[in-house]
């Protein structure tokens, strides 16, 4: 374009400005971008994470830049690197924790790895199967001195971080199959978990860390005891067989139970330490020994075997457990030349609290006490059988004042030595042997010999001819009795009796005809009048009674005991007498007499006829008439009594005087005389002649026997028979008379009423009144008896004769 036309200079407005004015606003964009970037850089710098280092045994599941660190399942950081420790034994994981948690990162922060875990307590950490393991962290909200290097926990804590409660340390000789996560039970309710199980090489025991969750941690105090409830237990002890099975969970992972059976426990600080007992029983046993600090261990040596003694065997004082065996060993005593003496050493504890001593606070005090017991009470250790059933032994602190002098060797090492007594021979085996020996020593053979002899004697007696004859004699005697009962004359007896009663009836009828009853009534009226007189006279009776009282008092004072003693002697003499041979002969004589009586009864039947006839005679001779007359006389007599009763006061006065005189009498002398009489009687009975009396009696009975025989032969019975016939006639008369008797009774009743009214005037409660009322009671009883008599006679007229 060489021939370029003249270009019109374009008036193009380029608006290209120079300097600051030309600066475009678009430059703000990169400025803002840079400012933003710088702000971001600053922010990320100020919020940069805190590097920490955590030591692990290995790095299983941990990946750099991936593995998170979580606090309460919230990611708070990430693993940034891993390296080995200097000695290559550990892996040091470098991680970064968010800055806002920096201030809590002090030395008590804990880290542990969380992976999927299947245990007896369940499955945990399942989410880590997909996402990979993570590192869990736990720290409290207390700001402490900053720490950046940590050692990871080997196991996840069984108790979730941040749980409130109380951690306790349980010391046990072995874990007893209690594993981490095992429940801690109280009355069967889970109160916490075992958080850690650790073997402590220093003490050779297992330390279990348990955690009791709040608020149950309040249950724990110094009186709390823990024991193992793992699995199933079968214990064959002194108390028999015990099978214990707790919850199924405790079968799998073990378990620990606790109880606070005793009150008065004190609050505990952080992480208190307890013993873990093997059984509930031993735990409860230990509750008594609360003054453990004063418990002492002592040692005793025993000759011979300690078989049956085991660790934990009881130490018994007067039957109460005061301690237990801790150790058994043998000791060679070389003090004897050439013959080393092997003795068994038993080390055991003694708890003063079980001896009832609570003010003992130090082991020295306990030892002082034991030394005193040994020196003064003669206390010695001795092996004794624990019970009859088991072969176990216990150490018994035996009080034996006769034991040879000994002392408690307090200076001995390692333990003070308690003097011992040799094991007595009456341990179980020996005891049973003794029993057998005694049984064997019983005179069994002699006893059997004697029994045989006795039986032989009995046999001889039974085989004796006389013994065999006894039944025959008895049969003969019964035959005789039978013959008597069946005899002709005895059968006729009722008929004769009936006739006799008819006669009695007749007599009574006659009695009525002669108005005997009316006369009786009249006589009673007289008697009533007399009673009125008596009542007047009785005014003086109280004085009389007082005198009688005095008399009785005097009689009371008499030496009656002496008399009684004499009477006793008499009776003893009589006893001696009765034991004499002659008396024994009496029964034989009686037997013979009975035989005679048998024959006599036959005769009596005949005599009944005679009685009959006698009664007839009785009727003929107007006996009833005579009775009526007699009643008339009686009436007259009653009238006389009435007259006499007017003079009764005078009479009472006389009696009063008489009693006064009697009071004055030397009754003591009389009693003495009676005593003498009894003594004489005693002497009399002791007389040799008296010994002959039984013989004489026997002779007399024989005589009676003969007499009865004569009676039978002499026709006496026939006479009796006739007499009864007469009596029958008389009874008829009596029956008639009795019909009027009710009237008589009514009158007597009226008489008693008036007498009662009279006596009532003397005022209730006076001695006289009581006496008189008693008299009236007797009178009424008489009337009732009379009534009963009448009734009885009406019902059974023949009772007059038979006497019933």
């Amino acid at each position: 374009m060489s021939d370029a036309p003249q270009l019109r200079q374009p008036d193009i407005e380029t608006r290209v400005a120079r300097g600051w004015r030309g600066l475009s606003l678009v430059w703000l964009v990169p400025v803002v971008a840079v400012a933003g970037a710088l702000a971001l850089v600053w922010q990320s710098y100020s919020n940069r994470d805190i590097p920490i280092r955590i030591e692990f045994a290995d790095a299983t599941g941990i990946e750099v830049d991936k593995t998170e660190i979580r606090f309460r399942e919230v990611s708070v950081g990430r693993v940034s690197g891993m390296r080995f420790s200097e000695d290559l034994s550990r892996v040091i994981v470098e991680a970064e924790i968010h800055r806002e948690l920096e201030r809590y990162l002090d030395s008590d922060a804990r880290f542990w790895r969380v992976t999927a875990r299947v245990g007896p307590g369940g499955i945990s950490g399942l989410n880590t199967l997909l996402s990979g393991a993570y590192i869990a962290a736990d720290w409290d909200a207390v700001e402490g001195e900053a720490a950046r290097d940590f050692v990871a926990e080997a196991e996840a804590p069984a108790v979730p971080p941040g749980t409130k409660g109380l951690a306790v340390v349980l010391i046990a000789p072995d874990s007893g199959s209690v594993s981490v996560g095992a429940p801690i039970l109280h009355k069967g309710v889970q109160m916490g978990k075992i958080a850690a199980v650790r073997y402590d090489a220093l003490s050779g025991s297992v330390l279990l860390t348990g955690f009791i969750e709040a608020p149950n941690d309040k249950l724990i105090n110094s009186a709390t005891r823990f024991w193992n409830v793992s699995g199933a237990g079968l214990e064959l002890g002194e108390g028999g067989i015990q099978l214990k099975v707790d919850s199924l969970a405790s079968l799998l992972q073990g378990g620990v139970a606790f109880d606070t059976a005793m009150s008065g426990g004190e609050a505990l600080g952080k992480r208190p330490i307890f013993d873990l007992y093997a059984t509930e029983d031993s735990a409860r046993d230990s509750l008594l020994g609360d003054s453990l600090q004063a418990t002492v261990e002592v040692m005793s040596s025993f000759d011979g075997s300690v078989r049956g003694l085991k660790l934990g065997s009881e130490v018994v004082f007067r039957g109460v457990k005061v301690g237990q065996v801790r150790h058994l060993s043998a000791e060679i005593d070389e003090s004897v030349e050439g013959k080393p003496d092997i003795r068994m050493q038993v080390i055991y504890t003694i708890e003063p609290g079980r001896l009832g001593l609570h003010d003992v606070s130090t082991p020295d005090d306990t030892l002082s006490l034991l030394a005193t017991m040994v020196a003064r009470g003669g206390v010695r250790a001795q092996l004794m059988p624990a019970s009859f059933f088991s072969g176990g032994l216990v150490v018994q602190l035996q009080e034996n004042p006769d034991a040879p002098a000994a002392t408690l060797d307090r200076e001995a090492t390692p333990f003070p030595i308690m003097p011992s007594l040799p094991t007595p021979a009456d341990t179980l085996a020996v005891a049973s042997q003794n029993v057998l020996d005694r049984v064997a020593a019983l005179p069994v053979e002699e006893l059997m010999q004697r029994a045989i002899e006795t039986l032989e004697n009995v046999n001889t007696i039974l085989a004796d001819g006389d013994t065999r004859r006894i039944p025959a004699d008895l049969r003969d005697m019964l035959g005789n009795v039978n013959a008597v009962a069946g005899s002709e004359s005895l059968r006729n007896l009722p008929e004769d009796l009936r006739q006799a009663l008819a006669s009695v009836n007749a007599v009574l009828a006659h009695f009525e005809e002669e108005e005997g009853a009316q006369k009786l009534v009249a006589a009673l009226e007289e008697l009533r009048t007399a009673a009125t007189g008596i009542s007047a006279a009785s005014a003086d009776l109280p004085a009389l009674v007082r005198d009688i009282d005095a008399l009785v008092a005097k009689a009371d004072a008499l030496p009656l005991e002496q008399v009684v003693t004499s009477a006793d002697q008499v009776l003893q003499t009589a006893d001696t007498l009765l034991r004499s041979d002659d008396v024994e002969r009496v029964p034989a004589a009686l037997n013979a007499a009975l035989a005679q009586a048998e024959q006599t009864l036959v005769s009596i039947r005949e005599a009944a006829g005679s009685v009959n006839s006698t009664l007839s005679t009785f009727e003929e001779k107007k006996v009833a008439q005579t009775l009526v007359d007699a009643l008339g006389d009686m009436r007259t007599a009653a009238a006389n009594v009435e007259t006499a009763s007017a003079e009764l006061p005078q009479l009472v006065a006389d009696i009063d005087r008489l009693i006064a005189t009697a009071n004055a009498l030397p009754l003591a002398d009389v009693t003495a005389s009676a005593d003498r009489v009894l003594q004489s009687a005693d002497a009399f009975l002791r007389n040799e002649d008296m010994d002959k009396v039984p013989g004489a009696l026997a002779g007399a009975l024989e005589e009676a026997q003969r007499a009865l025989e004569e009676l039978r032969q002499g026709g006496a019975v026939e006479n009796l028979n006739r007499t009864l016939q007469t009596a029958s006639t008389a009874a008829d008369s009596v029956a008639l008379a009795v019909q009027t008797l009710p009237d008589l009774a009514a009158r007597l009743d009226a008489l008693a009423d008036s007498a009662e009214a009279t006596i009532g005037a003397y005022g209730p409660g006076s001695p006289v009144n009581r006496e008189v009322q008693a008299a009236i009671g007797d009178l009424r009883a008489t009337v009732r008896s009379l009534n009963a008599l009448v009734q009885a006679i009406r019902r059974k007229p023949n009772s007059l004769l038979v006497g019933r």
Partner: protein
Amino acid sequence: MTRAADMGWIGCHNCGAVHAPGPSRCRTCGAALYARLPNSLQKVWAWLLTGVLFLIPANLYPLLSNEIFGHEEGHTILEGIVLFARSGDLLVAGVIFLASFVIPVVKVAVIALLACSVRYDWQMNRRRRLLLYEFVEFIGRWSMIDVFVVALLTGLVHLGAILSFLPGLGAVCFALSVICTMLSAQAMDAKLIWDDDRDE
């Protein structure tokens, strides 16, 4: 070589209509008429600088994070390329390397070169420079392919806890960077290439 400006004519930057001197507004589209865009180079440099700034975190921060079974894993652009290359997908690795790394860098370089050549009147073939400019204009939008892939993946693949994709901070920075460089390229007035004092 005669420029339209030499003739006093002004081409509309918006619709390309040529106007005789006089009007200040395009008769067809109404846009303001400039013989040359004002402050063109300043805008170019400002946007370019911003784009470069964003390019740095875009390559340092992960472009895309995938969360598989709760396990989150993110990769930057270059890590992703290495990953593909190592697993044998060299083609894919090459494409991504080209689109996500080479092109943005080259684009920035080209714009910078053009801006410098205009500013300092470097003696370069104007036609070649124009070609370069057109190339940058064309290729620039393809850089967004990465961002689209990230957007599609995060939008479409949501399998809950098993697998999910999350856009990383790198993707945002990358997108911003691309936008900034595109604005930078647009801010460049290609007519300036011809405004040389000296003819060839």
